[in-house]
Protein backbone atom coordinates (compact mmCIF):
# COMPACT_ATOMS: atom_id res chain seq x y z
CA UNK A 1 0.00 0.00 0.00
CA UNK A 2 2.03 2.94 -1.28
CA UNK A 3 1.34 6.33 -2.82
CA UNK A 4 3.45 8.02 -5.50
CA UNK A 5 2.37 11.47 -4.33
CA UNK A 6 1.45 11.22 -0.63
CA UNK A 7 -0.34 14.04 1.17
CA UNK A 8 1.92 15.56 3.82
CA UNK A 9 0.77 15.11 7.40
CA UNK A 10 0.37 18.86 8.07
CA UNK A 11 -2.11 19.05 5.19
CA UNK A 12 -4.04 16.10 6.61
CA UNK A 13 -4.21 17.87 9.98
CA UNK A 14 -5.36 21.11 8.33
CA UNK A 15 -7.99 19.13 6.37
CA UNK A 16 -9.22 17.37 9.50
CA UNK A 17 -9.64 20.69 11.31
CA UNK A 18 -11.31 22.45 8.38
CA UNK A 19 -8.43 24.89 7.86
CA UNK A 20 -7.98 24.39 4.11
CA UNK A 21 -9.49 26.59 1.40
CA UNK A 22 -12.51 24.94 -0.25
CA UNK A 23 -10.78 24.14 -3.56
CA UNK A 24 -7.77 22.57 -1.85
CA UNK A 25 -10.08 20.56 0.40
CA UNK A 26 -11.99 19.22 -2.62
CA UNK A 27 -8.76 18.18 -4.38
CA UNK A 28 -7.48 16.51 -1.26
CA UNK A 29 -10.72 14.57 -0.79
CA UNK A 30 -10.55 13.29 -4.37
CA UNK A 31 -7.06 11.97 -3.61
CA UNK A 32 -8.08 10.46 -0.26
CA UNK A 33 -10.98 8.51 -1.75
CA UNK A 34 -8.75 6.95 -4.38
CA UNK A 35 -5.71 6.30 -2.19
CA UNK A 36 -5.61 3.58 0.44
CA UNK A 37 -2.23 4.77 1.73
CA UNK A 38 -3.26 8.37 2.39
CA UNK A 39 -6.67 7.41 3.78
CA UNK A 40 -4.82 5.09 6.18
CA UNK A 41 -2.68 8.06 7.27
CA UNK A 42 -5.83 10.09 7.88
CA UNK A 43 -7.28 7.21 9.85
CA UNK A 44 -4.19 7.30 12.07
CA UNK A 45 -4.77 11.02 12.65
CA UNK A 46 -8.46 10.45 13.43
CA UNK A 47 -7.46 7.75 15.93
CA UNK A 48 -5.00 10.14 17.55
CA UNK A 49 -7.64 12.88 17.80
CA UNK A 50 -10.16 10.47 19.26
CA UNK A 51 -7.53 9.08 21.66
CA UNK A 52 -6.63 12.56 22.94
CA UNK A 53 -10.31 13.31 23.54
CA UNK A 54 -10.75 10.04 25.40
CA UNK A 55 -7.61 10.64 27.49
CA UNK A 56 -9.07 13.93 28.71
CA UNK A 57 -12.55 12.50 29.30
CA UNK A 58 -11.10 9.54 31.20
CA UNK A 59 -8.88 11.80 33.31
CA UNK A 60 -5.61 10.26 32.18
CA UNK A 61 -3.68 13.53 31.74
CA UNK A 62 -2.70 16.46 33.93
CA UNK A 63 -3.34 19.82 32.35
CA UNK A 64 -2.88 23.54 32.81
CA UNK A 65 -5.54 25.12 30.64
CA UNK A 66 -7.08 28.44 29.62
CA UNK A 67 -10.60 29.39 30.76
CA UNK A 68 -12.35 28.57 27.47
CA UNK A 69 -11.18 24.97 27.74
CA UNK A 70 -12.81 24.57 31.16
CA UNK A 71 -15.98 25.89 29.56
CA UNK A 72 -15.61 23.30 26.77
CA UNK A 73 -15.33 20.55 29.41
CA UNK A 74 -18.54 21.77 31.04
CA UNK A 75 -20.29 21.89 27.67
CA UNK A 76 -19.12 18.33 26.98
CA UNK A 77 -21.05 17.31 30.10
CA UNK A 78 -18.08 16.60 32.35
CA UNK A 79 -18.70 16.99 36.07
CA UNK A 80 -16.13 19.41 37.46
CA UNK A 81 -15.22 20.14 41.10
CA UNK A 82 -13.61 23.56 41.34
CA UNK A 83 -11.50 25.27 44.02
CA UNK A 84 -10.42 28.89 44.05
CA UNK A 85 -7.28 29.73 46.02
CA UNK A 86 -5.60 33.07 46.58
CA UNK A 87 -1.85 33.44 46.74
CA UNK A 88 -0.62 32.25 50.15
CA UNK A 89 -3.87 30.41 50.77
CA UNK A 90 -4.75 26.79 51.38
CA UNK A 91 -7.85 24.70 50.68
CA UNK A 92 -9.29 21.38 51.83
CA UNK A 93 -10.03 19.45 48.70
CA UNK A 94 -11.14 16.07 47.42
CA UNK A 95 -12.34 14.21 44.33
CA UNK A 96 -15.42 12.00 44.37
CA UNK A 97 -16.16 8.99 42.23
CA UNK A 98 -18.61 10.95 40.07
CA UNK A 99 -16.23 13.87 39.50
CA UNK A 100 -14.62 13.89 36.07
CA UNK A 101 -12.03 16.48 37.03
CA UNK A 102 -10.90 18.89 39.72
CA UNK A 103 -10.05 22.39 38.53
CA UNK A 104 -7.86 24.54 40.78
CA UNK A 105 -8.11 28.27 40.13
CA UNK A 106 -4.82 29.77 41.34
CA UNK A 107 -5.20 33.53 41.74
CA UNK A 108 -2.18 35.77 41.33
CA UNK A 109 -1.15 39.19 40.02
CA UNK A 110 -0.28 38.18 36.46
CA UNK A 111 -0.28 41.47 34.62
CA UNK A 112 3.03 42.01 32.82
CA UNK A 113 4.08 38.38 33.23
CA UNK A 114 5.76 37.07 30.07
CA UNK A 115 6.22 33.42 30.92
CA UNK A 116 4.85 31.46 33.84
CA UNK A 117 6.00 28.16 35.32
CA UNK A 118 4.18 26.02 37.89
CA UNK A 119 6.17 24.00 40.41
CA UNK A 120 4.26 21.15 42.04
CA UNK A 121 5.60 19.81 45.34
CA UNK A 122 3.94 16.56 46.37
CA UNK A 123 6.12 15.86 49.41
CA UNK A 124 6.78 12.36 50.72
CA UNK A 125 10.15 12.24 48.99
CA UNK A 126 8.67 12.71 45.52
CA UNK A 127 10.69 15.09 43.35
CA UNK A 128 9.21 18.48 42.55
CA UNK A 129 7.63 18.76 39.12
CA UNK A 130 8.15 21.97 37.15
CA UNK A 131 5.69 22.72 34.36
CA UNK A 132 7.30 25.31 32.10
CA UNK A 133 5.50 28.00 30.10
CA UNK A 134 1.93 27.26 31.15
CA UNK A 135 -1.17 29.07 29.83
CA UNK A 136 -2.55 31.82 32.07
CA UNK A 137 -5.04 34.64 31.89
CA UNK A 138 -3.49 37.94 32.92
CA UNK A 139 -6.86 39.73 32.78
CA UNK A 140 -8.66 37.44 35.21
CA UNK A 141 -5.46 36.80 37.18
CA UNK A 142 -5.98 33.04 37.15
CA UNK A 143 -4.05 29.89 36.36
CA UNK A 144 -6.24 26.80 35.93
CA UNK A 145 -4.63 23.51 36.95
CA UNK A 146 -6.27 20.11 36.41
CA UNK A 147 -4.32 17.24 38.00
CA UNK A 148 -4.89 13.84 36.40
CA UNK A 149 -8.25 12.76 37.89
CA UNK A 150 -7.38 9.08 37.40
CA UNK A 151 -4.25 9.60 39.52
CA UNK A 152 -5.99 11.81 42.10
CA UNK A 153 -8.67 9.17 42.71
CA UNK A 154 -5.99 6.68 43.79
CA UNK A 155 -4.40 9.02 46.33
CA UNK A 156 -4.73 8.80 50.12
CA UNK A 157 -4.75 12.01 52.19
CA UNK A 158 -1.76 14.15 51.24
CA UNK A 159 -0.66 17.74 50.92
CA UNK A 160 0.42 19.30 47.63
CA UNK A 161 1.95 22.72 47.29
CA UNK A 162 2.14 24.68 44.08
CA UNK A 163 4.26 27.72 43.36
CA UNK A 164 3.87 30.11 40.46
CA UNK A 165 7.14 31.40 39.05
CA UNK A 166 7.24 34.36 36.66
CA UNK A 167 10.12 34.05 34.22
CA UNK A 168 11.42 37.11 32.40
CA UNK A 169 14.55 38.70 31.07
CA UNK A 170 15.43 39.89 34.56
CA UNK A 171 15.24 36.36 35.95
CA UNK A 172 12.66 34.49 38.02
CA UNK A 173 10.35 35.61 40.77
CA UNK A 174 7.78 33.72 42.81
CA UNK A 175 4.35 35.29 42.57
CA UNK A 176 2.21 32.84 44.48
CA UNK A 177 2.15 29.73 46.66
CA UNK A 178 -0.87 27.52 47.25
CA UNK A 179 -1.51 24.56 49.52
CA UNK A 180 -3.97 21.77 48.77
CA UNK A 181 -4.96 19.49 51.65
CA UNK A 182 -6.34 16.48 49.82
CA UNK A 183 -8.59 13.91 51.42
CA UNK A 184 -9.92 10.87 49.54
CA UNK A 185 -13.54 11.24 48.39
Amino acid sequence: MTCANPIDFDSLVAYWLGELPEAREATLEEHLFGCAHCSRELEGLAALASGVRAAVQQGRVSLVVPGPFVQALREAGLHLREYEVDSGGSVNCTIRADDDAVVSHLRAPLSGVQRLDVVQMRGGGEPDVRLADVPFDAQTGEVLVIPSPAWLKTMPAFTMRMRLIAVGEAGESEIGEYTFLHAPG
Partner: protein
Amino acid sequence: MGQASCLDALDDGALARRVAEAGHAPDSPAEAELYRRLAPRVRLYGLRHLRDRQAAADLVQQVLLMTLERLRAGKVREPEKIASFVLGSCRMSVLEMRRGTRRREALLETWGDMAETFEAPEPLMLDPDRLAGCLDALSERERSVVVLTFFADKQADEVGAALAISGGNVRVIRHRALARLRGCMGANGSGSGIER
Protein backbone atom coordinates in the same frame (compact mmCIF):
# COMPACT_ATOMS: atom_id res chain seq x y z
CA MET B 1 -4.00 -18.24 -5.82
CA GLY B 2 -7.06 -18.12 -3.49
CA GLN B 3 -10.08 -15.93 -4.16
CA ALA B 4 -9.18 -13.45 -1.40
CA SER B 5 -5.66 -12.85 -2.67
CA CYS B 6 -7.04 -12.66 -6.21
CA LEU B 7 -9.35 -9.83 -5.11
CA ASP B 8 -6.50 -8.16 -3.22
CA ALA B 9 -4.66 -7.82 -6.52
CA LEU B 10 -7.49 -5.82 -8.09
CA ASP B 11 -7.58 -2.06 -7.73
CA ASP B 12 -10.80 -0.36 -6.62
CA GLY B 13 -11.94 0.33 -10.18
CA ALA B 14 -11.41 -3.26 -11.34
CA LEU B 15 -13.23 -4.52 -8.29
CA ALA B 16 -16.18 -2.22 -9.02
CA ARG B 17 -16.19 -3.38 -12.65
CA ARG B 18 -16.38 -6.97 -11.44
CA VAL B 19 -19.36 -6.15 -9.17
CA ALA B 20 -21.08 -4.36 -12.05
CA GLU B 21 -20.52 -7.24 -14.48
CA ALA B 22 -22.04 -9.73 -12.04
CA GLY B 23 -25.25 -7.70 -12.12
CA HIS B 24 -28.10 -9.14 -10.08
CA ALA B 25 -26.34 -12.46 -9.57
CA PRO B 26 -24.14 -10.76 -6.94
CA ASP B 27 -20.43 -11.50 -6.75
CA SER B 28 -20.52 -11.53 -2.96
CA PRO B 29 -16.76 -11.75 -2.27
CA ALA B 30 -16.09 -8.83 -4.62
CA GLU B 31 -18.87 -6.76 -3.06
CA ALA B 32 -17.61 -7.52 0.46
CA GLU B 33 -14.05 -6.58 -0.50
CA LEU B 34 -15.17 -3.30 -2.10
CA TYR B 35 -17.25 -2.47 0.99
CA ARG B 36 -14.31 -3.33 3.29
CA ARG B 37 -11.94 -1.06 1.36
CA LEU B 38 -14.22 1.94 0.97
CA ALA B 39 -15.89 1.91 4.39
CA PRO B 40 -12.98 3.56 6.29
CA ARG B 41 -12.77 6.33 3.68
CA VAL B 42 -16.49 7.07 3.89
CA ARG B 43 -16.42 6.92 7.69
CA LEU B 44 -13.55 9.44 7.79
CA TYR B 45 -15.44 11.73 5.43
CA GLY B 46 -18.45 11.46 7.74
CA LEU B 47 -16.42 12.15 10.86
CA ARG B 48 -14.74 15.12 9.23
CA HIS B 49 -17.98 16.71 8.02
CA LEU B 50 -20.52 15.56 10.61
CA ARG B 51 -18.29 15.23 13.72
CA ASP B 52 -20.50 12.44 14.99
CA ARG B 53 -19.55 8.76 15.16
CA GLN B 54 -23.08 7.38 14.72
CA ALA B 55 -23.84 9.70 11.85
CA ALA B 56 -20.57 8.65 10.19
CA ALA B 57 -21.50 4.98 10.62
CA ASP B 58 -24.91 5.68 9.07
CA LEU B 59 -23.22 7.44 6.16
CA VAL B 60 -21.06 4.37 5.49
CA GLN B 61 -24.13 2.15 5.17
CA GLN B 62 -26.18 4.63 3.21
CA VAL B 63 -23.51 5.47 0.64
CA LEU B 64 -21.95 2.04 0.17
CA LEU B 65 -25.19 0.06 0.01
CA MET B 66 -26.56 2.52 -2.54
CA THR B 67 -23.27 2.25 -4.48
CA LEU B 68 -23.42 -1.56 -4.59
CA GLU B 69 -27.06 -1.48 -5.62
CA ARG B 70 -26.28 0.92 -8.46
CA LEU B 71 -23.30 -1.13 -9.58
CA ARG B 72 -25.49 -4.25 -9.69
CA ALA B 73 -28.11 -2.35 -11.68
CA GLY B 74 -25.53 -1.07 -14.17
CA LYS B 75 -26.28 2.53 -13.17
CA VAL B 76 -22.68 3.52 -12.49
CA ARG B 77 -21.46 4.78 -15.85
CA GLU B 78 -17.73 4.37 -15.17
CA PRO B 79 -17.08 1.74 -12.50
CA GLU B 80 -13.33 2.39 -12.91
CA LYS B 81 -13.95 5.78 -11.32
CA ILE B 82 -15.73 4.31 -8.32
CA ALA B 83 -13.78 6.49 -5.85
CA SER B 84 -15.13 9.67 -7.42
CA PHE B 85 -18.64 8.21 -7.52
CA VAL B 86 -18.50 7.37 -3.81
CA LEU B 87 -17.11 10.80 -2.92
CA GLY B 88 -19.92 12.48 -4.85
CA SER B 89 -22.47 10.31 -3.06
CA CYS B 90 -20.91 11.23 0.28
CA ARG B 91 -21.20 14.92 -0.50
CA MET B 92 -24.86 14.59 -1.47
CA SER B 93 -25.71 12.43 1.53
CA VAL B 94 -24.03 14.75 4.02
CA LEU B 95 -26.01 17.66 2.61
CA GLU B 96 -29.20 15.63 3.05
CA MET B 97 -28.23 14.59 6.57
CA ARG B 98 -27.56 18.20 7.51
CA ARG B 99 -30.97 19.16 6.21
CA GLY B 100 -32.41 16.38 8.34
CA THR B 101 -34.08 14.73 5.36
CA ARG B 102 -32.40 11.39 6.03
CA ARG B 103 -33.01 9.43 9.17
CA ARG B 104 -31.56 6.20 10.42
CA GLU B 105 -35.04 4.62 10.29
CA ALA B 106 -35.35 5.49 6.60
CA LEU B 107 -31.91 4.03 5.99
CA LEU B 108 -32.83 0.74 7.62
CA GLU B 109 -36.16 0.66 5.83
CA THR B 110 -34.42 0.99 2.47
CA TRP B 111 -31.41 -1.23 3.05
CA GLY B 112 -32.42 -3.36 6.03
CA ASP B 113 -31.59 -6.85 4.71
CA MET B 114 -28.61 -5.79 2.68
CA ALA B 115 -27.16 -3.82 5.60
CA GLU B 116 -26.56 -7.01 7.54
CA THR B 117 -24.55 -8.57 4.74
CA PHE B 118 -21.52 -6.31 4.87
CA GLU B 119 -19.02 -5.52 7.58
CA ALA B 120 -16.86 -2.43 7.82
CA PRO B 121 -13.48 -2.77 9.53
CA GLU B 122 -13.43 -1.47 13.10
CA PRO B 123 -11.92 2.02 13.43
CA LEU B 124 -8.28 2.19 14.49
CA MET B 125 -7.81 2.48 18.24
CA LEU B 126 -4.80 3.72 20.15
CA ASP B 127 -3.45 2.04 23.26
CA PRO B 128 -4.84 4.50 25.88
CA ASP B 129 -2.06 3.90 28.45
CA ARG B 130 0.62 4.45 25.89
CA LEU B 131 -1.04 7.58 24.56
CA ALA B 132 -1.38 9.00 28.09
CA GLY B 133 2.34 8.37 28.61
CA CYS B 134 3.17 10.05 25.29
CA LEU B 135 0.99 13.07 26.14
CA ASP B 136 2.74 13.28 29.49
CA ALA B 137 6.11 13.38 27.76
CA LEU B 138 5.19 16.52 25.78
CA SER B 139 6.09 19.97 27.07
CA GLU B 140 3.27 21.82 28.83
CA ARG B 141 2.83 24.16 25.85
CA GLU B 142 2.73 21.26 23.36
CA ARG B 143 0.26 19.32 25.48
CA SER B 144 -2.01 22.38 25.77
CA VAL B 145 -2.03 22.87 22.02
CA VAL B 146 -2.71 19.19 21.28
CA VAL B 147 -5.48 18.89 23.86
CA LEU B 148 -7.15 22.18 22.94
CA THR B 149 -6.96 21.23 19.26
CA PHE B 150 -8.36 17.74 19.42
CA PHE B 151 -10.74 17.82 22.37
CA ALA B 152 -13.22 19.68 20.19
CA ASP B 153 -11.40 19.79 16.80
CA LYS B 154 -10.47 23.48 17.00
CA GLN B 155 -8.58 25.36 14.30
CA ALA B 156 -5.22 26.99 14.96
CA ASP B 157 -6.65 30.50 15.22
CA GLU B 158 -9.21 29.44 17.85
CA VAL B 159 -6.57 27.61 19.89
CA GLY B 160 -4.27 30.61 19.55
CA ALA B 161 -6.99 32.95 20.84
CA ALA B 162 -7.47 30.75 23.91
CA LEU B 163 -3.72 30.62 24.59
CA ALA B 164 -3.00 34.25 23.68
CA ILE B 165 -0.58 33.27 20.91
CA SER B 166 -0.86 33.56 17.12
CA GLY B 167 -2.43 30.91 14.88
CA GLY B 168 0.90 30.58 13.09
CA ASN B 169 2.62 29.88 16.39
CA VAL B 170 -0.02 27.25 17.18
CA ARG B 171 0.68 25.52 13.83
CA VAL B 172 4.41 25.40 14.59
CA ILE B 173 3.83 23.96 18.09
CA ARG B 174 1.16 21.56 16.74
CA HIS B 175 3.50 20.29 14.01
CA ARG B 176 6.28 19.63 16.54
CA ALA B 177 3.95 18.07 19.11
CA LEU B 178 2.27 15.73 16.62
CA ALA B 179 5.63 14.61 15.27
CA ARG B 180 6.70 13.75 18.81
CA LEU B 181 3.40 12.02 19.59
CA ARG B 182 3.50 9.94 16.41
CA GLY B 183 7.10 9.01 17.07
CA CYS B 184 6.21 8.00 20.62
CA MET B 185 3.20 5.98 19.48
CA GLY B 186 5.00 4.35 16.58
CA ALA B 187 2.61 6.05 14.22
CA ASN B 188 1.79 6.10 10.52
CA GLY B 189 -1.13 3.89 11.38
CA SER B 190 0.96 0.76 11.59
CA GLY B 191 2.95 1.20 14.77
CA SER B 192 2.56 -0.90 17.88
CA GLY B 193 0.52 1.82 19.57
CA ILE B 194 -2.27 1.50 17.03
CA GLU B 195 -4.58 -1.43 16.62
CA ARG B 196 -7.95 -2.35 15.20
